[in-house]
């Protein structure tokens, strides 16, 4: 089992292993988010996905998110694993585990982590449909790129 809390892997993710990384005697809650590959998006059928990462920077951005979580929710411990390469429908793309003494912080920190992943972690998804393929840009609808470009404020904070 790997002892690194933040990982990019090219093999199927073992959810239980990610959970074990955050298990602690002081924890009263472990919140696990599992992001999976969806077949239908707005009426369009996905056959499979390919994810690409700028690997060393993706890991350091996951670590940065970890530091941000520790600042905001001091008693939490987090582990994040993201898979890259070809993923089929229902495959697990990302697992985020957060443990904390009480459940509220674990829920909040976990949601924060996935939102930040969609802002700053250099991972890209290519959707393969029956009739073609496209690299998906910003999918975080709450933070569109109004000028057509990403906002440097989001990545520098």
């Amino acid at each position, binding site marked *: 089992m790997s002892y690194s809390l933040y990982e990019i892997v090219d093999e199927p993710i073992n959810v239980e292993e990610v959970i074990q990384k955050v298990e602690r005697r002081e924890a009263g809650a472990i919140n696990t988010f599992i992001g999976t590959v969806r077949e239908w998006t707005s009426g369009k059928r996905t056959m499979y996905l390919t994810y690409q990462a700028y690997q060393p920077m993706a890991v350091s951005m996951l670590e940065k998110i970890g530091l941000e979580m520790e600042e905001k929710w001091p008693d939490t411990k987090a582990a994040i694993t*993201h898979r890259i390469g070809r993923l089929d429908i229902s495959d697990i793309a990302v697992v985020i585990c957060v443990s904390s003494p009480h459940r509220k912080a674990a829920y909040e920190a976990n949601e924060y982590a996935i939102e930040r992943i969609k802002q700053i*972690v250099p991972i890209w*998804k290519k959707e393969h449909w029956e009739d073609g393929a496209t*690299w998906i840009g910003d999918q975080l609808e709450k933070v569109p790129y109004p000028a057509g470009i990403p906002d440097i404020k989001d990545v520098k904070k």
Partner: protein
Amino acid sequence: MIRLLFFADIQEKMGKSQLAYDCDSVTIRELKEQLKTAYGLFEIDHVMTAVNEEYAMEEDMVKAGDTVAFIPPVSGG
């Protein structure tokens, strides 16, 4: 020499994942202009840039030995 890295649609447009750019120092903005001129890479206006794995600003200066990665809007998760 500056090492340039391309990902996702930018990588497909360039037909390669990296490029050695012969130059001593240049701003990100100038670098993007030169990629547009040399390769017609107009998408480069819509991507962020990381220098040595840290997000950088358009006016930041990069120098020989640096690695510049062009980061299209990310879509992980």
